[in-house]
């Protein structure tokens, strides 16, 4: 049992990271009943944009560029963490504008449109940054490893997991404790209600999509140092995000978090016995859970079921 502990710790950190990845995805599904297949692409885009911001190459040899590159890495990193998601959010908003003709049609069309958008974003990344693997620099304080109970743990992973907890907490507070959150949640269940409350539904959708895209990008920035940066990383991301919302139940915030932890744990623990097969465990988990509970752990009825 004791030898399992590092795997459990690993699994839990992985679970938190999965939760971070799924956060924006589940928000958009929950509120807008749109399956945003571009989530993975926005994740990658955010990370690439943050990388470029941190590197400062695009500012060229102008005075600003030179000044920028002389800033300490931690400052540039902090700015990159903000800039990546903000830029991705604007891309997300453009995507929402494109999605408008599909509202009121079968959910399939939204899904297809975002699939196309994912292709386009991925190809754009290839075009701008090339196909090779790149890395995102992190400040020294976050690098390295530490020993605990005779085992090595990566500092950055813990930073990322802590970051995930904070992000999950903030999003939850935002949804539960602010009037904006209340409106967003109302939008999820009852668009009539939102209109009755005097909010502009299309503005709300635009903001939610931007917010979801920013969360995807944020996850990308945080995950890039662990997974590396490749143009097609989006597809590696969309799958766990998918699994998590299905296992957790479409539209349930805590269902998604719980599912992410379960997926992380199952991958971590199977990793102890059969590392090559560890990723398979999440699919088996999906089938086991959804086989018994057709709406996942905490799902509610959704228009997407039709």
């Amino acid at each position: 049992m004791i030898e399992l502990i590092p795997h459990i710790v690993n699994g839990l950190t992985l679970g938190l990271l999965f939760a971070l990845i799924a956060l924006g995805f589940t928000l958009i599904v929950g509120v807008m009943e749109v399956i945003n297949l571009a989530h993975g692409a926005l994740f990658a885009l955010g990370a690439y944009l943050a990388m470029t911001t941190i590197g400062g190459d695009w500012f060229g040899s102008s005075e600003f560029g030179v000044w920028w590159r002389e800033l300490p890495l931690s400052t540039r990193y902090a700015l990159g963490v903000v800039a990546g998601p903000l830029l991705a959010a604007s891309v997300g908003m453009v995507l929402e504008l494109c999605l408008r003709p599909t509202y009121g049609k079968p959910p399939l069309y939204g899904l297809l449109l975002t699939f196309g958008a994912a292709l386009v974003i991925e190809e754009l990344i290839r075009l701008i940054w090339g196909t090779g693997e790149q890395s995102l620099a992190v400040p020294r304080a976050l690098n390295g490893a530490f020993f605990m109970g005779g085992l090595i743990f990566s500092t950055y992973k813990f930073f990322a997991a802590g970051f995930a907890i904070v992000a999950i907490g903030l999003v939850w507070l935002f949804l539960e404790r602010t009037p904006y959150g209340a409106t967003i949640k109302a939008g999820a269940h009852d668009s009539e209600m939102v209109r009755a409350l005097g909010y502009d539904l299309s503005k709300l959708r635009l903001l939610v999509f931007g917010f979801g895209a920013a969360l995807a990008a944020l996850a990308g920035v945080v995950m890039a140092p662990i997974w590396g940066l490749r143009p097609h990383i989006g597809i590696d991301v969309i799958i766990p995000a998918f699994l998590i919302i299905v296992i957790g139940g479409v539209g349930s915030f805590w269902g998604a978090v719980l599912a992410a932890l379960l997926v992380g744990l199952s991958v971590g623990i199977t990793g102890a016995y059969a590392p090559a097969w560890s990723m398979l465990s999440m699919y088996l988990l999906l089938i086991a859970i959804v086989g018994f509970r057709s709406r996942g752990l905490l799902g509610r009825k959704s228009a997407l079921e039709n």
Partner: protein
Amino acid sequence: MRMITLSDIPARGGSPMTPAMALFMLALATAPFWLPAVGLYQYLGIEVAIWLIFALGFNLLFGYIGLHSFGHGAYLGIGAYAFGLFQQEIMVSLWGGLLAAILAASLAGAVVGAFLSHRRGIYYALMTIGFGQIVWFCAIKLHGVTGGEDGLLGIPRPDLVVGPIRYSLADNYSLYWFVAAILALVVVALWRLVNAPFGRVLQAIRQNETRARFVGYNVWLIKWLTFILSTAFAGLAGGLFSMAQEGAYPDVMSLHQSGLIVMMVLVGGGLVSFWGPVLGVILYFVARDIIGGVTETWLLWFGLMFVIMVITRPEGLAGLLHVVGARLRKKSAPGAVPVRKEA
């Protein structure tokens, strides 16, 4: 203006003698003669024909009964591996291999379908992705059987044996004729199927599952059978594909490829027309070769085209052709809208 749907009453009952069918068969029969002339090559014809078998079978599930599978590449892959393994482990035989491909894919389809058929909508789609990923993952990890990421290499192209006649399929020219003949059979069979009572019931289930159940149809069973049927076609396509490629590789099973087949079917207009998948597959491969010849980032342009299509013409190419055709007809004969009105 009224849009066409899959469920419109066919102009000539269910007779396969339609202008579209004639045009299709003509193109199929003459392709080897003009493909090189327009700057394309023989192998493209084989590839398109194989993906047409896959796409048309897939549309039975996707368009006709309205079940959105996003993991169908898995069954194409299973067919490809089954064909290859049959050649390598059991015997070199064309019919045996194709039969093995169809059986393996439909067996997998029967198992997976049993988990899926009481669902629809988003959970159906997500479960198909889950199962598709499992198959893909196993294909990569089961080195001993599938050759892992490298795939199965050196799958032979067995000779075509019919009675005493033996015909080599080693060159792409003769393989094209074989694949085209199978495709022709598939097209006619599927055309019959979708216009026969069974096909109309599939469409009824798409339109209203609840109502279909309450007029006495065993909806679960029909959904299950349709899934199996579509995986059988995928398996057949997979067997032919491994013959064409002389190998079986895991990448056809990836989510990406499964997404592409959905995209092809939709761009072509598989939701509104039997011929939608045909248009979509041809467009995809031609775009790949022509735009791909000009720029490396052809998928960017194809993706953009797709996005614009979903926004402006969600009915796809078939829908577009219908609109253009109707406009032309209107110009030449104002007010003449053919509506069937007999009883």
